[in-house]
C-alpha cells in the first residue's frame, strides 16, 4: 500500500503532498506526478495521430499502391512530420524532464500552475497546427521553407507550441533550484537527471532558434514583412529543426541508463565519463544543424566542416562513449546478478521478455548502427552531396528518431504505467512482442529508405514513376523494390505501434491495481536487495568482454561504411 502523506509537509512554506513508491522507494510529489501523466498521455495521442499519418505516407510511396492522391499525400506528410517530430516527442520529453527533475530528486514540481499553462499552450499549438494542415493550405512540410508560404495559422501554432515547451523547460530548471534549496537530495544529481539537464539545455537553444525564425516568418505570412531570405531562414530554422532531434538523443540516452538501472540494477561504470559525454552533447551537439546546409550555396567549407563535425566529432565521441558505457554497465550488472558464464550469457540471459529491457536494448543497437553511422556519413561535407534530399535522409532519421528515440520512450512507458498510474501491464504477451514488431519494422523502414536513397529516389515525392513529369526519367527496378519493402516494414511498425497503444491504454484504464497488498509487477524491477551486495568499489575493473566485442563490431561497421561512401563519391562526376 503506498503511503500518502495526507497532511502536507510544509517545506519552505510551500504545501506539497507526497507518496512513497513501494517499488522504487522514490518520493513522488502529487503535482509532478499528475503533470507527468498528462504530458505522457497527450504524447501518446499525438504518436497515434502522427503514426497513422506515417503509415498512409508509406503506403502512398509504395508505387504499387500509391494510396493517397498527390494533394492529400503532401498534406498528410506535413502533418506526419509535425505530429511525431514535434508533438509526440516534446510532450513525452516534458514528462521525462518532470520525472528526472522532481521524482528522481524527491522534490516538488516548481510552479505547478505555470506547468499547466505550459501544457495548455503546447496542446493549443499542437491542435492549431493540425487544424492548419488539415485546412489544406499549409502543406509546406514540417520545414516550411520560404518563399513557399503556409497559412499564418501554421506558423502561429508552432510559435505557441514552442513558447509552451520553453515554459515547461524553465519549470524543469526551477524544479532543480527548488530541490537544491529544499535539500531533497545529497550531492550531485543522478546521472539520469544530468541527461535530462542536457536535453533541457538543448531544448532552450532549439526553442529560442525556433522563435527567432518563426516569428518573422509568421509576420511575413500575415503581410507585415515583405519577404524572408530563403538561405537565412534555412540556417536559423535548422537551429531548431535538427537540435530538436538532439534533445531526443540526450533524453533517450538518459532513459537507457534509467531502464538499465531499474530493470537490471545497472550502475554507471564511471559517473565522470558518462557526464563528460553529456557535456560534449551540451556544447557541440547543436552544431550539427549544419548537416542540412552542406548542399547549399553561400556557406563556406570552413563553417560547414567545423559545424557538421560537431567540432571535430567531439559530440560523436560523446555518443560513442555512451555506446560503450550503457551496455558495459548492463554487462557488469548482469555478471554481478549471476550471469557470468562465457562472453555473452549476460546478454543472452537478459530479460528479453521484458518489453522495457528489450525496447531499450534494441533502441541502443539500432540508434547506433543504423541511425548513428548513417548520420555521421550523411553529415560529412562532401558525402552529403551523394544523398542530400534523397529518401536516404528520412531513412537515416527513422533510424535515430523511430528505432532509437521512439522505441526507448515506448520502453520506459512500460515502467511509468505501473509506477505512476499504479496499474500493472495487461496482455503481457502482446506487450512482450510489441518492441520487436515496432523495432524491426522501424529498422526495416530505415534500411529500405536508405537503400532507395542510394539509388537516387527523392524524398517528399509523390510519384516515383514521374508519370506527368516535364521530361521522363526511369528509376531502376531496385528502387521500386525498396519502396515496396519500405511499405511492408511500415505496416510491421504500425502493427507494433497499435500493439503499444492498446497495451498502454488498456493498462491505464483496466490494468490490475498495484496498490493492493502483495501486488507484484508482471515485468518486475530489479530486486533492490541485490544491489546492496556488490558495489563497484569492490570490483575496480569489471570484466566486460561481451561489450568489447559489441563495440568492436560497431566500430568495424562504422569504418567500413564510411570508406565505402567515399569510394562512391569518388566515382561521381567531378565538381568543385
Amino acid at each position, binding site marked *: 500500500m503506498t503511503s500518502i502523506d495526507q497532511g502536507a509537509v510544509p517545506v519552505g512554506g510551500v504545501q506539497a503532498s507526497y507518496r512513497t513508491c513501494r517499488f522504487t522507494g522514490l518520493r513522488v510529489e502529487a503535482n509532478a506526478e499528475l503533470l507527468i501523466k498528462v504530458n505522457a498521455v497527450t504524447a501518446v495521442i499525438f504518436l497515434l495521430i502522427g503514426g497513422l499519418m506515417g503509415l498512409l505516407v508509406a503506403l502512398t510511396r509504395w508505387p504499387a499502391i500509391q494510396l493517397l492522391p498527390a494533394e492529400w499525400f503532401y498534406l498528410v506528410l506535413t502533418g506526419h512530420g509535425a505530429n511525431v517530430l514535434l508533438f509526440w516527442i516534446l510532450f513525452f520529453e516534458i514528462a521525462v524532464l518532470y520525472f528526472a527533475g522532481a521524482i528522481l530528486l524527491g522534490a516538488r514540481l516548481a510552479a505547478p500552475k505555470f506547468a499547466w499553462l505550459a501544457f495548455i499552450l503546447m496542446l493549443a499549438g499542437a491542435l492549431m497546427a493540425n487544424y492548419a494542415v488539415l485546412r489544406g493550405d499549409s502543406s509546406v512540410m514540417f520545414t516550411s521553407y520560404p518563399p513557399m508560404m503556409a497559412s499564418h495559422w501554421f506558423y502561429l501554432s508552432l510559435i505557441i507550441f514552442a513558447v509552451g515547451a520553453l515554459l515547461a523547460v524553465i519549470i524543469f*530548471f526551477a524544479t532543480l533550484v527548488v530541490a537544491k534549496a529544499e535539500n*531533497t537530495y545529497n550531492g550531485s544529481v543522478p546521472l539520469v537527471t544530468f541527461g535530462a539537464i542536457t536535453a533541457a*539545455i538543448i531544448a532552450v537553444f532549439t526553442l529560442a532558434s525556433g522563435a527567432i525564425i518563426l516569428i518573422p516568418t509568421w509576420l511575413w505570412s500575415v503581410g507585415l514583412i515583405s519577404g524572408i531570405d530563403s538561405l*537565412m531562414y534555412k540556417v536559423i530554422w535548422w537551429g531548431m529543426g535538427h537540435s530538436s532531434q538532439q534533445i531526443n538523443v540526450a533524453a533517450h540516452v538518459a532513459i537507457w541508463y534509467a531502464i538499465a538501472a531499474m530493470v537490471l540494477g545497472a550502475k554507471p561504470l564511471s559517473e565522470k565519463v558518462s557526464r563528460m559525454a553529456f557535456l560534449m552533447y551540451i556544447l557541440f551537439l547543436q552544431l550539427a544543424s549544419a548537416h542540412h546546409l552542406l548542399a547549399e550555396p553561400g556557406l563556406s567549407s570552413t563553417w560547414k566542416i567545423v559545424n557538421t563535425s560537431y567540432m571535430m566529432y567531439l559530440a560523436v565521441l560523446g555518443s560513442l562513449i555512451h555506446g560503450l558505457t550503457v551496455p558495459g554497465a548492463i554487462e557488469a550488472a548482469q555478471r554481478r546478478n549471476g550471469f557470468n558464464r562465457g562472453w555473452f550469457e549476460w546478454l543472452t540471459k537478459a530479460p528479453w521478455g521484458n518489453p522495457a529491457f528489450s525496447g531499450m536494448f534494441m533502441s541502443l543497437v539500432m540508434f547506433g548502427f543504423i541511425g548513428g553511422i548513417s548520420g555521421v556519413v550523411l553529415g560529412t561535407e562532401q558525402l552529403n552531396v551523394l544523398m542530400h534530399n534523397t529518401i536516404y535522409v528520412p531513412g537515416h532519421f527513422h533510424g535515430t528518431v523511430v528505432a532509437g528515440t521512439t522505441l526507448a520512450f515506448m520502453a520506459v512507458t512500460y515502467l511509468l504505467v505501473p509506477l505512476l498510474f499504479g496499474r500493472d501491464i495487461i496482455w503481457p504477451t502482446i506487450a512482450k512482442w510489441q518492441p520487436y514488431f515496432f523495432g524491426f519494422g522501424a529498422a526495416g523502414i530505415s534500411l529500405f529508405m536508405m537503400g532507395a536513397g542510394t539509388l537516387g529516389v527523392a524524398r517528399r515525392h509523390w510519384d516515383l514513376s514521374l508519370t506527368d513529369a516535364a521530361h521522363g526519367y526511369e528509376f531502376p527496378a531496385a528502387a521500386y523494390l525498396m519502396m515496396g519493402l519500405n511499405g511492408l516494414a511500415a505496416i510491421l511498425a504500425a502493427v507494433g505501434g497499435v500493439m503499444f497503444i492498446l497495451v498502454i491504454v488498456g493498462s491505464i484504464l483496466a490494468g490490475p491495481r498495484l496498490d493492493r497488498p502483495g501486488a507484484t509487477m508482471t515485468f518486475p524491477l530489479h530486486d533492490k536487495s541485490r544491489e546492496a551486495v556488490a558495489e563497484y568499489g569492490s570490483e575496480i575493473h569489471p570484466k566486460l568482454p561481451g561489450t568489447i566485442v559489441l563495440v568492436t563490431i560497431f566500430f568495424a561497421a562504422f569504418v567500413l561504411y564510411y570508406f565505402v561512401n567515399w569510394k562512391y563519391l569518388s566515382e561521381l562526376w567531378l565538381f568543385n
Partner: protein
Amino acid sequence: MTSSDNTNDTAKGETPEGPVPAMQRVLDNPFLLLFLGVTVPAVLYIIWGVMEVASVPIGN
C-alpha cells in the same frame, strides 16, 4: 536529510571528504552549463552562419 551539507558544501566547495574538484563543480552547475550550451552553438552555428549568408556578394 535536514540541515544538510548540500547548500553549504556547494557554496564553499568543501565536503567532509574534501574539496569538490573544479571540473565536478562545473558539471554540477546546471545554469553554467545552460549558458555554455546556448552560447557555444549560438556563436559557432547561428551567428557565424548568418554572417556568412549576409556577406554573399552581389552578382551582375
